[in-house]
Every structure is written in structure tokens, then in C-alpha cells.
């Protein structure tokens, strides 16, 4: 009698949403990666979720970093000048 291959347990949608960052980082095991991709391939809702997740990352990337207080900035530049003058 043949021993059946172990088929990985399919992921539930609720489990998949916990793995999106690991998936995008490429840090899932190859088994989990296959489960993830098999699920995405068959589930339009999770496909939409992953797309939202990607869009969120893209939009976050378009934020501009805040700048520091101008007085603090001036102070740092004067630290720089003092350092440079003392060299």
C-alpha cells in the first residue's frame, strides 16, 4: 500500500492575513509559501486583501519624512561647524 503524500493543511483566510508581511519579505518556509500561494490563487477576497496590503505599503512609502524643529537643526549645524573648525 502506498503511503499517501502529506498534503499541507489549507490556510484559512484568517490565517493568511497574519502572513502577508512574511510572504512579501520572502521569509515563509517553502511549504507555507506554497500554502499561501495556493490560497491566493483560489480566493478573490484574499487576493483583494493582499492588494490592499501592497497599496498600503506603497502609499506609506510616498509619505515625506517630517523635519526636525528649525532651532534644533540650526544647533546641529553649529555643532558641525565647531567640529569642523577644531579639526
Amino acid at each position, binding site marked *: 500500500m502506498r503511503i499517501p503524500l502529506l498534503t499541507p493543511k489549507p490556510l*484559512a483566510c484568517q490565517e493568511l492575513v497574519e502572513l502577508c508581511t512574511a510572504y512579501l519579505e520572502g521569509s515563509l518556509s517553502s511549504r507555507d509559501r506554497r500554502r499561501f500561494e495556493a490560497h491566493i490563487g483560489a480566493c478573490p477576497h484574499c487576493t483583494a486583501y493582499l492588494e490592499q496590503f501592497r497599496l498600503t505599503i506603497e502609499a506609506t512609502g510616498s509619505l515625506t519624512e517630517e523635519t526636525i524643529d528649525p532651532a534644533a537643526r540650526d544647533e546641529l549645524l553649529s555643532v558641525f561647524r565647531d567640529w569642523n573648525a577644531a579639526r
Partner: protein
Amino acid sequence: MSALALAPPFPLRLGEDARAMPGDPPATADHELVEKLRAGDEAAFAELVDMYGAALLGVARMYVKDKAAAEEVVQETWLGVLQGIDRFEGRSSLKTWIFRILTNRAKTRGEREGRTVPFSALAGAGDDEASVDADRFLGPDSAQPGAWAAPPRAWPHDAALNSEALAVIQMAIEMLPDAQREVIRLRDVLGFSAEEVAEALEISDGNQRVLLHRARSKVRAALEKYLDPEVAA
């Protein structure tokens, strides 16, 4: 003044762990910037301050008691950067090196203040938070436990990128717990790699990923609430 040492093919890490170097290109931009700093180029220094000043302050705030203390730590850090720049060998990226100087100083200062807040404690907070509210999924007694009950709907692509949506994202980031906020800021706003964040904040790769995932999930939820309030409600 010593010339900038060429990075060996497999650079030694500053930290105790020896994670493989990611696809970091040879830091040509770093090299130029470092040479400018060594040459006393104030504009180059100002550029660095504008790029990382606010994020350094944010990271410092995680360890010390108040804003004034954090500002002092940041100023000490910049002085440390200047004093050490001649010895910088490019084994890590310039920004990672700067953040490591900050993290070490902020930790020391925090300990002196009696605020021993190990990052692992900050990082561990929220480990069990769900990325999406459990009531968006079918319950354990349903035919398909864990399947979507209130599934997400596609967003128009540009909607997430308009200025109102960006303000929603900004607000959501500000409301995150400290460690999550700083990790998403370094990764997704400033574009650090996973390895750079782990190294800069002296946390494990796994910690970095958990914090980032929590942060991104909350920002996505805030964005969904704004873009598709019916479904997110």
C-alpha cells in the same frame, strides 16, 4: 585621514549575529557622503540631518523619559557621528551605523534614568493582536471557519495615494505603539531594508517582522475605514 576602506565581499557585521548581507549594493552614495562629511561639507551634513533627524528622535523617545532627553541623545549621536566619521569603514550602511550609535546611547541613557525598557518588551507588546478583526471572519461553528464573512473589496488604485488618504496613514502611524511606529517609519517611509532595521534597532529579524506586520495591518485597517467605511465598520 584614512581612505574609506573597501567593503570586503562578505562584510563583517558590527553586531554579534552574522546574518547574511541582503542585496545591498556597494554603498557608493554612502561613500560620497562620507567623503563630503570628512571634507567638512556642511550641506552634506544638513542633508543627513533632514533625512534622519526626525526618525532618530522617534527612536530615542522609545528609550528615554522625555522629549528633552531624546533631543540630547540625538545631539550626542550627531557629535558621535562626526567624531567617528574618520573611522567609519562602510561595513554597515552609513544610516545603519548612525542609528546604532543612537540606539546604544539612548539605551545607556534610559538605563541611567532607571528606565530599563528592553526592546524585546516593547516588541513583544501586541504579539497576539489580530491583523483583521475576528468578526470579519466566519466563526468556528460555521461551515468554513476562518473564511471571510465581510471580505475586503478592491480599492481604486489612486484612492490610497491621494492627500487625504496619506493624512489618514500619517495619523494611523502616529497612533501606533512606539516600537511599531518606529519600525514602519524606518522600513516603509525611509526605505530601510529588514536587515538594516534589525541592525539599527538591535532587534531580531523575527521581531522586526512582527512589529512591521502589526503596524502595516493597522495602517491598512485605518485606510480601509476611510476608503470603504461600510465594509470596515
